[in-house]
């Protein structure tokens, strides 16, 4: 046993897979200790806030601040105040005035503004719609305002007279130290469509998905192992029956059976555990098939025959003479079942047949929510890339471990 483990951990493929897998799981268990965010707390009042650190604006204004000899970048100021509509307006102006802007990237706001300031004059000669005329004037005023550093005036309402009284002017050189501010929150991976913190949600979803995968994998492997042993060792009618059913369900795609069963269970009954059980109950055929063929090749070996002659019971023969020989194979099958269970949950959720719950996030549900709110078309990459990459890393690490084990136990595959 010790020798085998030693061998397994010296297989490079297994080791790499194991490290990735343990890293992923380890992160999921350690991360909750370092955050006070709830996985399902809705922080954002809106969809898909990009990753970053969020500072309370009221607090920044109230903060005394420091004056640094660094002027706020005029260009970033311009860029921040120009929206998509204004950028479109600038491009329209260039088109109408016949200004060549092919040399610059249209996403580069600063370069566009530079070109605008060089070329804009309010008495343009071309004809255009009133809306466009207004837009051009607005763009010009934004650009001009941004060039002058007038600062921002803070005013407070006088409680007695109701008049605004100027209390402070914040200039372009005023800074706040983030460690002085109490209300600072960082969303490493932004927020999702519900306004939840994606990283915290992802960690809890990874654990839930892994639980589903583990449950499905254990059920599928147990059923597969039992039926495979029965068919392979007992033979006869039982073998024919099991082989028939197994062949049937290897040809009818298990994904289809999975969809049909999940649908027939209905929304109200489909929790995380039930989905795991359903996946497990549909995934066993190929395990049965391979266990059966392994057992058949073992059945007539000398040591098994010797056991039979010594009058050992069937149970004992299976436990001592057959199981140890297929143990490595069963472990590999389990690993594959877990990884395909995680994947099956994700795919099922994408069609809307995953766990029917909003109380618990799973990787598939996160993906489904992101897709329903068109994150993949809005460019909100933080809502789905982390999920996709987590699934890929899980599958990849488990496949690697599997191949490493395969190389240890099937010496013919070694180079």
């Amino acid at each position: 046993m010790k020798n085998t483990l030693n061998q397994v951990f010296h297989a490079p493929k297994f080791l790499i897979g194991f490290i990735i897998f343990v890293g992923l799981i380890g992160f999921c268990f350690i991360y909750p200790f370092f955050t006070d965010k709830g996985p399902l707390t809705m922080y954002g009042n809106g969809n898909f806030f990009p990753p970053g650190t969020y500072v309370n604006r009221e607090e920044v204004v109230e903060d005394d601040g420091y004056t640094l000899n660094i002027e706020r970048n005029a260009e970033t100021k311009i860029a921040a105040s120009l929206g998509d509509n204004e950028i479109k307006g600038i491009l329209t102006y260039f088109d109408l005035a016949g200004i060549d802007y092919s040399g610059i990237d249209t996403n580069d706001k600063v370069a566009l503004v530079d070109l605008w300031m060089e070329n804009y004059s309010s008495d343009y000669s071309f004809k255009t719609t009133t809306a466009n005329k207004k837009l051009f004037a607005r763009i010009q005023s934004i650009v001009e305002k941004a060039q002058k550093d007038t600062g921002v005036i803070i005013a407070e309402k006088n409680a007695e007279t109701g008049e605004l009284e100027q209390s402070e002017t914040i200039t372009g050189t005023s800074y706040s130290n983030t460690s002085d501010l109490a209300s600072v929150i960082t969303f490493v991976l932004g927020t999702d469509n519900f306004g939840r913190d994606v990283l915290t949600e992802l960690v809890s979803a990874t654990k839930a998905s892994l639980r589903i995968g583990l449950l499905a994998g254990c059920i599928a492997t147990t059923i597969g192992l039992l039926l495979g042993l029965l068919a392979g060792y007992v033979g006869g009618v039982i073998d024919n029956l099991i082989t028939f059913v197994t062949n049937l369900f290897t040809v009818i795609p298990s994904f289809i059976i999975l969809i049909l069963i999940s649908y027939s269970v209905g929304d109200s009954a489909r929790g995380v555990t039930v989905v795991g059980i359903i996946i497990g109950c549909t995934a066993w055929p190929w395990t049965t098939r391979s266990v059966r063929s392994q057992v058949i090749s073992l059945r007539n070996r000398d040591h098994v025959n010797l056991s039979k002659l010594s009058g050992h019971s069937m149970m004992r023969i299976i436990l001592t003479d057959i199981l140890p020989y297929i143990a490595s194979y069963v472990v590999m099958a389990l690993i594959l079942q877990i990884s395909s269970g995680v994947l099956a949950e994700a795919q099922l959720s994408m069609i809307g047949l995953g766990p029917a719950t909003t109380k618990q996030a799973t990787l598939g549900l996160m993906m489904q929510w992101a897709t329903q709110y068109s994150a993949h078309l809005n460019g909100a990459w933080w809502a789905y890339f982390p999920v996709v990459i987590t699934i890929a890393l899980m599958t990849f690490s488990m496949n690697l471990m599997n191949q490493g084990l395969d190389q240890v136990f099937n010496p013919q595959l070694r180079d």
Partner: protein
Amino acid sequence: MKGYKKYYFNKILWYLLTLVCAVILNFVLPRLMPGDPVASIAANSLAGVTDATQVQKVYAEYAAKFGTDKPMWEQFFIWLGNALHGDLGQSFSQYPREVSDILANAIPWTLALQLPAIIVGWLLGNILGAIAAYMKGVFDKAILPAFMFIGSFPAFGMATILLFIFAIKLQIAPSAGAYGFDLLPSFSPAFIKSVLSHYQLPFWSIVLITIGGQGIGMRSMAIYELNADYVKYSRFLGIKDNKIVGYVFRNAMLPQITGLALSLGTMIGGNMVAEMMFSYPGLGMAMLSAVTGQDYPLLSACTLIITIMVLIANLALEIIYGIIDPRVKAQQQD
């Protein structure tokens, strides 16, 4: 009967039996769902009506129309009789559209997308695996593992990545649908051009994730065969390397065909979800709308069609296998 005839006869018989089981499962399972979708359709057309006898009458009419007032086995035989004439009933969610009409619009897109993509992915994977086993070096240490990692992405994951890079950032590919929204299906050059440009992303996302898995299988098989006795013997006989490699890859190819047959169902299931990401008007979208609309006539028709497609593909692979593997022929002649 002897030889191939017997082999094919047995195979076809077995597939027919499987088909019967699949049809029964596809019919029964979705109808076990709790809740009554007919009630919701009736409720839609009854909005505002409060008279109880009127409500009951309309509900009974709809129940009779969809046949849900009869026992399940009777429904099954009626459905089967109609299905044999190509009538799969009416859709609940897109009522009064015929299910067969929805499917007839969806199937060509799915077939045209998945069949070429899976074949191309399988071929490229096998070539890469064979090269990795024979040449080793950078193919074995870098390119194959890279594709293995890419292959770990689920099909829908690869779809989102390609969408993000090519449709949203670079804006060189369309992001949704199978052709431009402003076009009607026809054989005009503009339409064909639009179809081709919409085809790229779904096609490549399937091909990319197929390569790795097939490559790794081929590599194992090829290494196994390269160490076989007949290879050593052929070398002793002085047969040219090229010829030996030909033998080796032919032998290594055979299990790959079985492997493809076994993984076909899983692959197609995954690719359906990728189709949905691109709003490709294939069976994936039809299935999604069936699930969200609680539309079991459509759902069971979709799953049945997918099952039949997988069955036909499997049968085709087995027939091909019978032709290229001489051992099958030898076995049948005993």
